[in-house]
């Protein structure tokens, strides 16, 4: 870790070297470590340390970006010059937004000393705990335990100076028998919040309950989706259309739908980078504050997230959701929340006569983006529900389902939520009870 003063000095130096009309400097420092285990043994144990400097320059209505991870003076000069040359070589873009002006940023805590100081031996001890729990039941454990400490500094020639350190810890395990498996996962800013014993027991219980899985015919079934599965659907919903770029290009399910009912009334989704129950971070990759954005409220489409460029095109303000430049994808929600409901998971279970319990989803991909149809498999804990109880494990099923349709058919939303990693950032989601979830084929295990 380099610290704010050193990073600011580097940024100021790069800004001073730039001969462009406008210049932005982004410095990303990352120290990360990860322990992977399989067959109840550690098989991969790694650490990496990197610093990335990204320079974006504007010359009139032209933009260029150059990056390096070499921070000596000669390299700083080269990278700013390279960005300038790239900008000069291209045709003008009349719709190019200027770099943003500074805005007040409210700091939020996204840093934990214990995560920063966590070492390989401590990761190995947590892994040993999970392996012991699995071995005691004649099962095998696999998974990964990662910790990272990062710094982000954004500075631009209009006066933006934004700096924040952050940490992240994530523990995932899949425990397996010969014919079943169980999954558990947790993520947190503070590694001390991760409980290897609890996660290990959760995965072991699933693997034991799922033994001797029976086939189930595909078709439309009532499902209880655990937060792991719900978070996956939310991540794809965000990817498919909760960013302004897809919205403006007509590729989003939100295009032309603002103010209209697009899901059931029980569904409320927002993005909030300052909520301490998520993975908060105070600003985006343009140095603008992450604002809370109401995306879907009681089923009504409310808005999408913006960066400076997409906001400029609609004469709006950025919501602080820019990704690192050059960003061809556009802004993305990175701190998603699905509002919890009023039913415990036990109450949900009691309400299901015949149905399927889904722990998590695997290899989800869009089939029809505009209709939010995705396909994927169930995995690591799929069970038959009969008369309000989990009856037995079932062989995994393929689903092909519109996410919005699933959210329209949501009968109830769980009271408890879980913080989970998204494609980028974090997602806090409850379990959902959904009717008519579409399973289109089955596999052999």
């Amino acid at each position, binding site marked *: 870790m380099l610290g704010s003063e050193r990073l600011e000095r580097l940024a100021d130096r790069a800004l001073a070297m730039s001969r462009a009309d406008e210049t932005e400097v982004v410095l990303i420092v990352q120290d990360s*470590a990860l322990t*992977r285990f399989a067959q109840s043994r550690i098989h991969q144990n790694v650490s*990496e340390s990197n610093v990335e400097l990204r320079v974006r320059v504007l010359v009139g209505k032209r933009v260029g970006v150059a990056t390096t991870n070499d921070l000596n003076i000669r390299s700083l000069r080269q990278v700013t010059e390279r960005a300038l040359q790239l900008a000069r070589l291209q*045709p003008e873009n009349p719709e190019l937004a200027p770099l943003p002006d500074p805005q007040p940023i409210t700091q939020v805590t996204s840093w934990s000393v214990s995560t920063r100081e966590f070492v390989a031996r401590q990761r190995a001890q947590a892994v040993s705990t999970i392996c012991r729990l699995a071995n005691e039941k004649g099962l095998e454990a696999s998974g990964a335990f990662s910790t990272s400490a990062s710094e982000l500094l954004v500075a631009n020639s209009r006066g933006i100076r934004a700096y924040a350190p952050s940490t992240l810890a994530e523990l995932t395990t*899949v425990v397996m028998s010969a014919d079943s498996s169980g999954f558990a996962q947790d993520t947190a800013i503070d590694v001390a919040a991760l409980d290897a014993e609890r996660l290990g027991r959760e995965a072991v219980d699933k693997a034991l309950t799922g033994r001797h899985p029976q086939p189930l015919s595909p078709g439309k079934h009532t499902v209880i989706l655990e937060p792991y599965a719900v978070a996956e659907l939310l991540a794809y919903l965000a990817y498919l259309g909760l960013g302004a770029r897809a919205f403006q290009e*007509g590729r989003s399910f939100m295009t032309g739908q603002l103010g209209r009912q697009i899901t059931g009334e029980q569904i409320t989704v927002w993005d909030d980078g300052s909520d301490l129950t998520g993975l908060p971070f105070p600003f985006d990759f343009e140095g603008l504050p992450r604002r809370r954005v109401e995306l879907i409220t009681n089923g009504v489409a409310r808005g999408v997230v913006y960066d400076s460029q997409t906001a400029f095109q609609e004469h709006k303000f950025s919501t602080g959701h820019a990704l690192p430049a050059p960003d061809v994808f556009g802004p993305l929600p990175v701190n998603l929340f699905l509002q919890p409901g009023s039913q415990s998971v036990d109450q949900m279970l009691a309400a299901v006569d015949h149905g399927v319990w889904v722990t998590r989803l695997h290899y989800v*991909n869009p089939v029809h983006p*505009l209709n939010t149809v995705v396909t994927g498999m169930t995995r690591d804990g799929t069970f038959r529900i009969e008369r309000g109880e989990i009856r037995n494990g079932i062989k995994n099923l393929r689903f092909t389902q519109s996410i919005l349709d699933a959210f329209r058919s949501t009968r109830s939303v769980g009271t408890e939520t879980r913080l989970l990693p998204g494609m980028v950032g974090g997602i806090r989601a409850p379990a959902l009870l959904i009717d008519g979830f579409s399973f289109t084929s089955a596999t052999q295990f």
Partner: protein
Amino acid sequence: MKDIAQRALNAAQLRGASYADVRVVRQEWQSIQVKNGRVDALAQNESAGFGVRALVNGCWGFASSSRITLAEATRVAARAVEIARASSLARAAPVVLGPALHTVAWYETPCQVDPLRIPLEDKVELLLAADESMRRLKHVAVAEGSMEFICEVKTFASTEGSFIEQRLVESGAGIEVTAVGNGELQTRSYPNSFGRQQMKGGYEQILQLDLADHGEQIAEEACALLSAPQCPSRTTTLILDSSQLALQVHESCGHPAELDRVLGDEASFAGTSFLTTDRLGTFRYGSPLVTIVADATVPGALGTFGFDDEGVPAQRSVIVDQGLFKGYLMSRESAATLGRESNGAMRADGWSRIPLIRMTNINLEPGQWRLDDLIADTDDGVYMAVNKSWSIDDKRLNFQFGTQLAYEIKQGKLGRLLKNGNYSGITPEFWGSCDAVCGASDWRMWGLPNCGKGQPMQTAHVGHGAAPARFRNVRVGIR
């Protein structure tokens, strides 16, 4: 780089490593993206660093850093050793690497025109011309094109005495159009999906694509798809074009043949494999027409190199021979568990990540048919081309693919264009139903620059050669 490598290896050995290797890597890459007549993104990037892998008490440790100095080489090597010692807290049998390797060599991608020396204006002009050709129709919402050029220089050294330097060059480009209308959204791309067709080699690869000549055609197809009938759901005969078949090979043969998956190393993330070791040599993977090889020596193919990231020479090996499952993609360590030797499949994404077993070029060997004859020989079925959607279960059995284009086949002729083409199946049943593979004249190499695997996630650039093929009794459409 030799001094950095030497320092790291010495430091690892002094701290107790029984084996260590180091890779010092420098990457330069240029990305260009145009969209709707404007330059959307233009970036020139570089990244350099080194990674040290150390074996201590039979356990692995790996550490990497972007600071390429002698002092950092010592620190990072020490960290790799420390991590390896921590690994021994949860260990099983010690790692065995098999026979020692001692290779001193140099390899360079054959490259007629260095892509990073071509003026940027020429590249932008070519992409904008293609972009313009896609935007002449009313329903075109997004027209985009991209190029990516990568130059990677890497040095590998090991305590067994290997010292290998390689310079690998990639060039890639592609165009894509999205049409929106009638409550539909349809996408067409050229020459492949995934943003671009990527190959090993220079700018000559880009010029061969003739991007601008294909823009209008894919725009017309995307717009026609908006009002095309839905691909019906039924069980029928399916002919796949070579690019979709390339992805089918990737997902249903390449990944399940990775021996680390088979041994459980990816169990919690990407999954395991149905190609378990007890099936090696005896399992009927497909029909006798199906022969699939791993070949890292195909000229110009994306998965071609001189040596893998354990210093094993690039080579060709058989995975499926006339339908019979015969071999895996292997590392030194995993090969030793089967009493075999590595076939050179260990590759890392840049300097900061540990090598994993990755595909090289996984190719379906050509058969005898010509595509026209194959269609003429088919009474009733569907022809599908160019991937749009993909998904497969965590043992690589149940798959579902969507394609950009689908045409009905009636009495030996291509008929109506159908939208949302889709097919699904179980891997060995699907390959077992293959009754025709087209020949060398229809066979083509495809480059996939987006193969994800591992934690932390690594992206590999892999190749697949395939010719169109026919499959009987396949479920198409979604019920």
